[in-house]
């Protein structure tokens, strides 16, 4: 271990002394400083600024570190061979595998260091950029209520009707003024908690601290700087439904299997059933069940989000869909509703609701009523049909962790990708000269990020009909084979999830560690050791 560490430490010191680390650190800082300038538009919501910042800095950070890993891993070994310092190392009691491992660890130490610095700066700057959303001011409770600007959480709960309930907990912190004249200074120690039911009559005298931009605050806190898990919509067995319908049609004599292909018909029926299931006609209502909620804290104070996006077929006035929502099982006391909504179509909307609507088995029933028909009565307008788009058309989100740890896990996946590249570089440098090793490693990088592109390009317009013509028939199995063993970096890219405030699961990041480092990098390092053992490092001189 001491020897491996000696090589690791030496590699780190080389990178520092050769100013590589310094240059890269400056580049990273430059990116972090310049990106906010580029992405901030005047008047943009704070959330979108923060989201753009995170994605436009973490992505370059990953790329810079990837390139650095390619360069360092190839250079560190090739250089020592070229300048023959390796003679001095390998004539010491240093097994060659320890040399290889030490080099890789050294490169990864450099990467980790830069990643730590870059990650901390990005995290800090993101929080600073988010600060406007957290700005608060002190107002009279009456004014706040009148303008609908009660504490943001409360505002949303009021919208959902939740805040009207007397047992609302935790209570809002309010403060009485010393006298009516002097401007109020918020003193947390003097603030006291008041339950909602006592609050309303005292609204004239009490002061509350409210967020300046409640919508920004809410989106920031609950949709961006958070880590949310998802409860997925449980769809019925469309195949069974299609089968039943087919049987029905056959019995009715409508369907003739001699004239129509049964498989085609079945596919069409499945599509139809699924469409129908996602569609709510004017005035109709439909119940949906969400699963995978068994880890939700079902305390009544815990607020979950239902995120949905619906489109409207037929005329929807002002592009707005009117609906009302019910949460939970109607037979249980925690059933709650209706929550009236007027939401613009084709946009995502979030409805907060209370966690105790979730059944103990981790399922949640949500009933949606399309209110549009009522408007249409007596006129030619027959009301808009509400339709939820496929998988992400409706989902339940709940906070499961913090943004910081979510970012850590995202960076861990980036680290794994870079570790894979560094191992590829070390491998290449054991038998290739610096430029060739660099190119080789760069190719591994390209292959790892281009999997989707290549697959799509080959199949674009049908296999064999693209620019390459029949050659595609040859290339397809080649690439298929290659991609079967080659990692696809996009499956280890958690950045979209992070930016969207969705949890990057520990399982996911561990998958990255196991597959990219435990399998991929290890394989390259083992191969590198095998080749390096055969290698006569002094071969060039006679």
């Amino acid at each position: 271990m001491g020897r491996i560490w000696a090589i690791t430490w030496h590699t780190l010191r080389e990178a520092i002394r050769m100013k590589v680390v310094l240059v890269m650190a400056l580049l990273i800082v430059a990116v972090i400083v310049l990106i906010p300038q580029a992405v901030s538009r005047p008047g943009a919501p704070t959330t979108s600024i923060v989201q753009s910042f995170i994605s436009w800095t973490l992505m370059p950070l990953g790329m810079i570190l990837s390139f650095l890993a390619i360069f360092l891993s190839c250079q560190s070994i090739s250089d020592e061979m070229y300048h023959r310092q390796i003679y001095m190392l390998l004539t010491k009691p240093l097994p060659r595998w320890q040399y290889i491992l030490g080099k890789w660890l050294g490169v990864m130490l450099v990467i980790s260091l830069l990643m730590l610095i870059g990650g901390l700066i990005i995290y800090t700057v993101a929080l600073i950029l988010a600060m406007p959303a957290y700005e608060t001011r002190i107002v009279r409770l009456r004014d706040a209520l009148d303008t609908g600007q009660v504490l943001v959480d409360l505002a949303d709960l009021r919208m959902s009707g939740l805040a009207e309930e007397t047992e609302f907990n935790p209570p809002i912190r309010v403060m009485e003024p010393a006298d009516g004249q002097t401007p109020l200074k918020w003193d947390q120690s003097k603030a006291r908690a008041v339950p909602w039911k006592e609050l309303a009559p005292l609204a004239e005298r009490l002061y509350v601290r409210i967020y300046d931009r409640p919508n920004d605050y809410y989106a920031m806190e609950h949709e961006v700087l958070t880590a949310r898990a998802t409860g997925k919509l449980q769809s019925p067995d469309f195949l069974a439904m299609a089968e039943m319908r087919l049987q029905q049609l056959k019995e009715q004599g409508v369907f003739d299997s001699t004239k129509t292909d049964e498989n085609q018909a079945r596919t069409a029926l499945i599509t139809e059933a699924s469409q129908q299931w996602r569609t709510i006609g004017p005035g109709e209502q439909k119940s949906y069940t969400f699963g995978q909620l068994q880890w939700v804290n079902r305390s009544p104070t815990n607020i979950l989000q239902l995120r949905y996006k619906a489109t409207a077929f037929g005329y929807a006035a002002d592009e707005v869909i009117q609906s009302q929502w019910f949460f939970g099982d109607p037979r249980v006391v925690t059933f709650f509703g209706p929550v009236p909504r007027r939401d613009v179509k084709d946009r995502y909307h979030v409805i907060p609701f209370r966690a105790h609507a979730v059944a103990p088995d981790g399922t949640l029933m949500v009933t949606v009523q399309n209110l549009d028909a009522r408007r249409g009565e007596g006129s030619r307008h027959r009301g808009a049909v509400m339709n939820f788009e496929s998988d992400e058309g409706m989902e339940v989100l709940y906070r499961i962790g913090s943004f910081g740890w979510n970012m850590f896990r995202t960076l861990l996946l980036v680290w794994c990708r870079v570790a894979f590249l560094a191992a590829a570089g070390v491998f290449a440098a054991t038998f290739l000269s610096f430029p060739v090793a660099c190119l080789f490693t760069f190719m591994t990088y390209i292959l790892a990020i281009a999997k989707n592109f290549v697959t799509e390009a080959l199949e674009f317009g049908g296999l064999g009909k693209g620019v390459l013509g029949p050659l595609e028939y040859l290339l397809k199995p080649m690439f298929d084979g290659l991609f079967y063993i080659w990692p696809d970096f996009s499956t280890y890219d958690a950045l979209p999830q992070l930016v969207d405030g969705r949890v990057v699961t520990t399982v996911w990041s561990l998958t990255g560690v196991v597959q990219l480092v435990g399998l991929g990098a290890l394989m390259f390092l083992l191969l590198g050791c095998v080749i390096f053992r055969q290698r006569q490092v002094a071969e060039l001189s006679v």
Partner: protein
Amino acid sequence: MADKRPIVKTIGLSKVFKDFWRRDKVVAVRDLDLEIQPGEVFGLLGPNGSGKSTTIKIILGLLYPTRGRISIFGQPPTDVSIKKRIGYLPEESYLYRFLNARETLQLYGRLFQQAGEMRASRIDKLLEMVGLQHQARRRIGEYSKGMARRIGLAQALINDPDFLILDEPTTGLDPIGTRQIKELIRELGRRGKTILLSSHLLTDVQDVCDRVCILYGGQVRAHGPVEQLLSQEDFTQITAPRLAPRTVEEIRQVIQRQQGSEAVTISHPTERLEDYFIRIVQQAQAASVVTSGAQMGGALPDFLSEQEGDALIESLVSAAVPAPVLSEESVTTMPEPAVSTEIISELVSGPATDRQSFTVIPPPPPVKEQVDQTVLDDLLGSPEDQHRG
């Protein structure tokens, strides 16, 4: 010498370098049979490209033999454990420009898994030995070639090796460094270390080696103990204090009478430029002239173990107390001080008036400036040091 097995043994060792198409390109070593015994200073001689470095690299496992067998300490060269007992100074100092001397030695010390304290004390002693203790904080990139060479030597000794491989150790060194290295090799030899010295500087080899082997075209052309190879049994050398011309003439007559030979040369001994140069520098150092280069090296570090007990070595070691300016120790390695002061004063302040030494040539058996003409003229074309006889 408890262990009588050879340190290095090669049988029919061959190394052929192939080109890209696997065709034989160069035969660097051809059927080499070599044995290096424990405790000997073995010289590997030969002109450039004769296969010296290739042989050394095979011994070190940096190259693999094409044919033949080789064992070091009874193990194949790829065995990592034997490297603990080997010290290696390559033909050039392949050091890291961005490290300073101390960091360099630390790196190599760590590879031997030496404990921190022991490593630090060894490094101090080695830096002192090679005279770089005051330059230890400078980057090696700023070093002169000779200074880098000294660091190379220091790193070769950091593990107290039983077997020291020195590939052209004196290239790039000034005469003082050369002399020090030779002294060092002799001292290490006295301590029972096994040393493999490769060089094409013949005086170096001649001064320190017990046994030599002359390579040409990857093959052994001559080998054996130095004295045996070089002694000229046909000549005798007498050195005496300054003699009156009459005495000289008498001696000549005696020799002619007794031996019936006219081939008698009588001349004043000239000091070798090397000895003279070293003395001048030592004087400057004694006068504390500042230098940015390496200082004269110090004593051999005491951690370098001895292979066999010897009272003389004991006394040498105990005398070797580190001192800031290390000329005192070096004096012991110099020729007789009495003679040297005479000659310097003679050289510096005009012709000597008083005593002079006459050397009657031809030389005696342990002659220095003479080489086996038959072999070397043949092999080297222009011998380094034409012998006067």
